């Protein structure tokens, strides 16, 4: 039979191996969450850009009265050009401007009368506004899970998160206009 110390060493090695497997599994999970946050962030940015672009298209289309066009174009432009600090406010303002424009009496009917593609632009607008809601929800969901994972003891003790910054929530008023 083996001497006792060999058994101890083997047991020690087995325990160390299991620990390494476990830690690497946790690291993989955390990495996957970080990738998910980044993908969701890119989708959110794309959805916001799309919404602003559709709004500008609508404003420039001569389908609306000039005052509504001006309100929408200004809000969309400010959302596009806002810096990181002002982004959430500017995007919320765009949501409010869209709701105010669409809630005007006769908005959808007026568009339908004026051009064949009025319905098409409205469909685009509804779709892009709804996608902002979805993209933001999915991004914040990913952020919440990544932040919860980062709070775990193992992740805090070992440098498994690398130099990835702790992701922040994106909080805006994104209620879509009722089309």
């Amino acid at each position, binding site marked *: 039979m083996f001497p006792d110390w060999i058994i101890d060493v083997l047991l020690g090695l087995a325990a160390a191996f299991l620990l390494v497997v476990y830690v690497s*599994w946790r690291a*993989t999970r955390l990495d*996957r969450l970080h990738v998910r946050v980044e993908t969701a962030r*890119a*989708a959110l940015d*794309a959805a916001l850009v799309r919404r602003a672009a559709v709004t500008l298209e609508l404003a420039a289309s001569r389908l609306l009265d000039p005052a509504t066009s001006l309100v929408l174009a200004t809000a969309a432009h400010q959302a596009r050009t806002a810096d990181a600090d002002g982004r959430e406010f500017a995007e919320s303002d765009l949501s409010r401007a869209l709701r105010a424009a669409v809630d005007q009496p006769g908005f959808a009917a007026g568009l339908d009368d004026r051009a064949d593609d009025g319905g098409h632009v409205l469909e685009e607008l509804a779709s892009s506004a709804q996608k902002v809601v*979805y993209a933001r929800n999915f991004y914040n969901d990913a952020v919440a899970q990544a932040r919860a994972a980062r709070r775990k003891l193992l992740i805090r003790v070992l440098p498994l998160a690398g130099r990835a910054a702790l992701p922040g929530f994106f909080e805006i008023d994104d209620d879509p206009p009722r089309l």
Partner: protein
Amino acid sequence: MRIGIVCPYTWNVPGGVQQHVRDLAEALIGYGHGVSVITPADDDAQLPPYVVSAGRAVPVPYNGSVARLAFGFLSASRVRRWIHDGAFDVLHVHEPAAPSLGLLACWAAAGPIVGTFHASYEKSRVVSVTAPILRSALEKITGRIAVSEAARTTLVEHLGGDAVLIPNGVATARYATAEPLPGWPGDGGALGFLGRMDEPRKGLQVLLRAFETLGRERPGLRLLVAGPGDADDVLARVPADLRSRVVVLGLVSEEDKVRAYHSVDAFVAPNLGGESFGIVLAEAMSAGAPILASDIEAFDHVLRGGRAGVLFPTGDAAALAAAAGALLDDPARRERLSAAARAAVRAYDWSAVARDVLRVYETVTLGAGGVIATDGEG
């Protein structure tokens, strides 16, 4: 778009999740997308062409009842092969927290995964124990959908995070045409009710009180009542002289339910509250029945503030009787309301729900590549 949908429960057993998956898949196919559904199914089950069987589900005790679930290595390898061969752009997993195909699919896949949560339950100790097991698989879901506020609350409380709300659709086409039941609606006029007869919040008692007035004013008027509950209890609440004109069908088949909607001159939804949407109301609207409904918020919304049906003050039997009388005397108005109801309910059709689900797919697939099969690491 190539869409892979995972249904956790046996396809040929009736159930809400299965029905949801079927209606969604068919609406997505209607938009021209490629859809494959994997589901447990009995060996002799007749499956539509877009459905792939993952084998039989096994009855096991789970969470206090016996559930039929598909799990184990054989199911897992079938799901993995299906994911690999399907080359999907997005994977849509239903009820991913149930220990069945959905959870296995999350385990075996990487890429854009959408999860739809159906169930709602109170917080239980069991769930707190299982949450860590579920977490690593559910972490892979990149877009979460809840079918109701209750399902969303359950998800948030048990697993954290959030979900977008996309309610169930109504298969309006299924209700659009049907033969009335033999002898209905008849010359004297007919009102209809469908819902739990012994559940006060469904408001049958309000309708029965209104019928005491209406039935005596109109000697030919009849009332058709369908739904679970005891028929004798209902008839006992009707005065003896009117009893012959109240027809209680009790629990009816799906087919007879559709025929019942087509058998009345007006459909009454006298609910006192507690309805988040009113699936019965939406079905009756799909059938083109003129609607008389209490003015609870959900009904007011579905009926477009009274343009797609008549609203009366909630619980007010006298107001219901007056509104029903006016409607029964005005066939032209019933015609208009019928058309308006059919038009208004289109917003709740599966085609509209599928459009929102497609927007979710487009959001999660953006820049994410396709779905790939993995060897099932954590």
